[in-house]
């Protein structure tokens, strides 16, 4: 008996394969090297693996878009776009963590592999052509994160927030899985493109849709319930209100490097999955779900921006800020258009630059055993570290959406896509809530520039790699605000499957 191995398109998932090898290599390397001497090599091994993976992804840019592995993953520019973004975030996280691991005496042998595996989860979420793969991506990411969130051994809060995240995350996964089941029950398939075709969406990359039941673009109750549960499951990862309660606690308790990773990378992955699911599987039902998402977006923006006003801890403040930004990103999905999808990708890049930059400053200012995360710790920073203060001010103004930074341009793209889709009220609500946000972002700047330092702090030399990240991010925040054309062009090309 001959056993026919199906022709597998390994090249399509090459970036992920490299990450798998990287994760395994760091595990083994730690065993071989044993003690703490392996710290720097492990970090560089991870960065090198991510770079190779990213290089492959860039090299695949001109490959034809296709489905691979029995139509389970899409290898297209959308996947590549997010792959590169995730890898940049991962590399930056390694640089952040490198500093923190040394300071806090974390065990690096588990940290780096977990980071690599969670990155694979994120790539899977963006690449998923099938709801099952979406679920696998979410789970792979989540399980790695549950450990990473509680990585600090010295303090108790991280453990508490890790447990919270684990319990609630399992809860959310159940919703997601049940949503997938209901969609399957309604349409007879879990393939995104086949669901789309069954619901009357035109063309696109579709594999063999065996068993799919063409229902036309009329939503049954079961299907709508399924869509609602998908919103819950993915909305949890994206920290949309009212599925956000975990976020501030977890962001505060997790090591700063992981907080940065989650607020930028995980959020982007959740939105990549949301975009794929809603604009490939359910575009024809947009009239049914867009109002729902518009309401969720409004509530998310308003809650994030108002509650952030009351925070005294900068990580919590950035946590609520990232909830508000999730609201802006959701506005792009509400638009349900090619322009909206492109604006989401643009905003994800811009937000990565702004937020990673801000977290870089938080990391630099931390010290062993004490993270120095009260906003009042930033008092007088401009006198001690003028360059860091100027960078932090740039990130705060950018997050507040002041032109000519990428924060303004990103909001402009997102809200004008919403306006084009007829959601003028949503754009106005977003604008109004973003005006309130200026107040809490500015409070950090106020502390840095207009309050005298409380104590004389010995000016320790900041970690040069993290400072480099902050500087590059600072340039990016301005450059993308003045010349957004390149990224929006790439983002448009990456979302051509949306009509």
């Amino acid at each position, binding site marked *: 008996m001959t056993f026919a191995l199906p022709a597998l398109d390994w090249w399509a998932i090459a970036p992920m394969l490299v990450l798998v090898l990287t994760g395994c290599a760091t595990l083994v390397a730690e065993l071989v090297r044993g003690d703490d001497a392996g710290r720097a090599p492990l970090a560089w091994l991870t960065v090198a693996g991510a770079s190779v993976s990213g290089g492959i992804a860039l090299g695949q840019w001109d490959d034809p878009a296709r489905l691979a592995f029995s139509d389970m993953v899409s290898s297209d520019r959308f996947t590549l776009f997010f792959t590169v973004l995730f890898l940049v975030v991962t590399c930056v996280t390694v640089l952040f963590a490198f500093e923190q691991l040394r300071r806090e005496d974390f065990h690096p042998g588990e940290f780096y592999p977990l980071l690599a595996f969670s990155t694979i989860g994120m790539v899977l979420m963006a690449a998923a052509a099938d709801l099952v793969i979406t679920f696998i991506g979410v789970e792979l990411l989540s399980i790695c994160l549950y450990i990473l969130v509680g990585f600090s051994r010295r303090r108790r809060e991280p453990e508490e927030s890790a447990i919270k995240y684990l319990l609630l995350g399992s809860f959310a996964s159940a919703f997601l899985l049940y949503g997938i089941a209901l969609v399957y029950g309604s349409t007879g398939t879990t393939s995104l493109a086949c669901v789309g075709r069954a619901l009357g969406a035109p063309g696109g990359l579709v594999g063999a849709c065996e068993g799919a039941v063409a229902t036309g673009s009329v*939503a049954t109750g079961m299907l709508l319930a399924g869509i609602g549960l998908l919103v819950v499951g993915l909305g949890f990862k994206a920290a949309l209100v*009212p599925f956000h309660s975990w976020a501030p606690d977890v962001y505060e308790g997790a090591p700063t490097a992981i907080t940065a990773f989650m607020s930028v990378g995980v959020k982007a992955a959740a939105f990549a999955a949301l975009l794929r699911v809603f604009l490939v599987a359910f575009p024809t039902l947009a009239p049914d779900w867009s109002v729902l998402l518009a309401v969720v977006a409004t509530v998310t923006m308003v809650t994030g921006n108002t509650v952030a006003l009351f925070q005294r801890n900068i990580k919590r403040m950035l946590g609520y800020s990232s909830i508000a930004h999730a609201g802006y990103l959701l506005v792009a999905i509400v638009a349900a258009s090619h322009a909206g999808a492109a604006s989401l990708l643009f905003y994800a890049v811009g937000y990565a630059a702004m937020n990673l930059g801000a977290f870089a400053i938080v990391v630099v200012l931390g010290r062993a055993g004490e993270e120095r995360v009260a906003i009042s710790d930033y008092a007088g920073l401009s006198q001690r570290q003028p360059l860091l203060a100027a960078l932090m001010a740039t990130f705060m103004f950018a997050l507040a959406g002041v032109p000519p930074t990428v924060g303004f341009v990103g909001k402009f793209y997102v809200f004008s896509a919403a306006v084009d889709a007829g959601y003028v009220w949503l754009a106005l609500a977003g604008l109004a809530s973003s005006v309130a946000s200026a107040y809490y972002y500015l409070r950090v700047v106020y502390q840095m520039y207009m309050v005298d330092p409380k104590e004389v702090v010995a000016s320790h030399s900041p970690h040069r790699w993290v400072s480099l990240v902050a500087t590059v991010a600072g340039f990016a925040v301005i450059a993308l605000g003045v010349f957004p054309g390149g990224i929006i062009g790439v983002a448009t090309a990456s979302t051509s499957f949306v009509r």
Partner: protein
Amino acid sequence: MIDLLWLVPVLPLAGAVALLAGGRRLGRGAVVATGTGSVALAFVVAAGAVTDLVANGPAMRGVEVHLFPWLAWGSGSDAVTVAEAGLLLDPLSALMILVVTGIGTLIHLYSSGYMAGDEGFARYYAYLNLFTFSMLVLVLANNLALLFVGWELVGFCSWALIGFWFERKAAAAAGQKAFITNRVGDLGVLAALFLVWANWGTFSFHALPGSTLPGVLDDPARVLATPLVALAIPLLLLLGVTGKSAQIPLFTWLPDAMEGPTPVSALIHAATMVTGGVYLVARVHPLFDQSPEAQLVLGTTGAVTAFVAATIATVQVDVKRVLAYSTVSQLGFMVLGLGAGAYGAAAFHLMTHAFFKALLFLGAGAVIHGVASQQDLRKMGGLIRYMPVTAWTFIVGWLAIIGVPGLSGFFSKDLILARAFGRGLVDPAFLVLFGVALVTVGITAFYMSRLVFLAFLGEYRGGSVHPHEAPPSMLVPLVVLAIGSIGAGWVGIPPFLLGEAGHATVIEQFLAPATLATGTWEGTLDHSTEWIITGLSVAITLAGAGLAGVAYLGEGPISPVVTELVAPFRRLFAGRWFVDEAHGALVIRPLARVASFLASVDVGVVDGAVALVVAGVRGIGALLARLQSGYVRGYAVTMLVGAVAVVASAWALR
């Protein structure tokens, strides 16, 4: 030189970058040379470009310079530009760039003396240059989106420069207040921006409906979609104007902004940035022309602000605060002119005001510099003997602002009065506004005369501090501005004073391609009416100044009856009409309450839901509840409730 127009904003930007990069390594001479030189060069280029524009002839006076596509949709060759980085040089922006770079150069020069002893000298000049760049972006932008970039950047620079002396707590707080207040106004501009986009799919000033710019596509289809939008866009823009140009109800930040260095007050908070709102309306006037209701709101805002601010100025004892309220009041005059549809007259007053108010602020700075940082009028007096140049130039500024015939303020202020009256013939409500403005002219004469009498005449009351005259670097700008304060008005001498026929002044004719209102009143007063208006305003000016003379120069005490009579007014004015208190009671505290309610909901719902669930299932669930740990159950309940809500509304909202 129009091809080189891009140099006008880029030169100050290059100066700012050089100063920021060089920082403390640069010597003071190099800092002044870089800072002042770059703006002076920009002025030269601007003057050359404007000369070319004038040579073009009226029909061709609108030139666009395309730099690079900024906001675009799509990729590669399919990319569609939404808003480009492009400049528009027309009579209106020509006037503005000359004012910004010209007066900017003088204030840069003045700063070299005023800020001589300050530690952050290079940083100060860097911000000042960055401000000049931002203001030039604001006035040269050829589309609304790019204008907004300049609009926000000037706000940022203003914040940085007010808070420049951050050792002073009040300065830091004032900077915060200015920025936050302006964000409220900016919300209006942003919302208008999106409504403009939603209605016409363009930000270009050329393509706005009813644009009178040369070369416009006169597309009759480009009329406003609905009456609601036709009203909403100008009103939202007006919100931005009340923020940037310090009108009621958002004007309270400007007097507080006086905590910044005095040259900053002169440049940003008198001559240029605060006129940004006035410029914006004049720039997009077609949107206002279509809505007489919005114009009436605009005019009323201006007239009432002019009056209220003038009354407050009468009781201020800080020399800079008198000038700050005076600025708010004069901006009110400009906004009244805008409301009357007299955009040219408003722009004219903007220009003359830039001269005399910069002069007055710099003069006040020279006084403060000369009496050891004393700003209290009650501790001055008789300064004309100690600082004659400062005093005489200040007196020129005083005569110009109160509108003594022949000086610049006379022509521009009377032009606004005449246009408001003319509008009143069509729309009687403007007759009331005209009356309010006329009364304000008298109050203006009163408080400005009071200021001059208290500071420069009488006996010196400053005790042991010996006043001294300012250094030449500060006096030269004063003299130049004094000359401007006299002569700048001569481009706007109304034809009836010259015995000529017609109504439009030279400056209005020059600005007409950019500012001519379409479909509204165009000025049909007969010459005898214009004579009466001018006569009235001069008489009221003299009365106001005379009253100040009686009150502050007269011998002997003022009758207690009078004191008794004015006491309640003094309280009202000194309390600034309690606008700050109204903000607190009507806006800030309610909003704070809503926000803290939301915040408590965010945490409290969790606790509340837990309590509810626990109470509900206490019987069977007591054991179960005890097994659960901490807040997690609460979060889970929130999620469950949320999930039910989402699924339910997925049904309900389809």
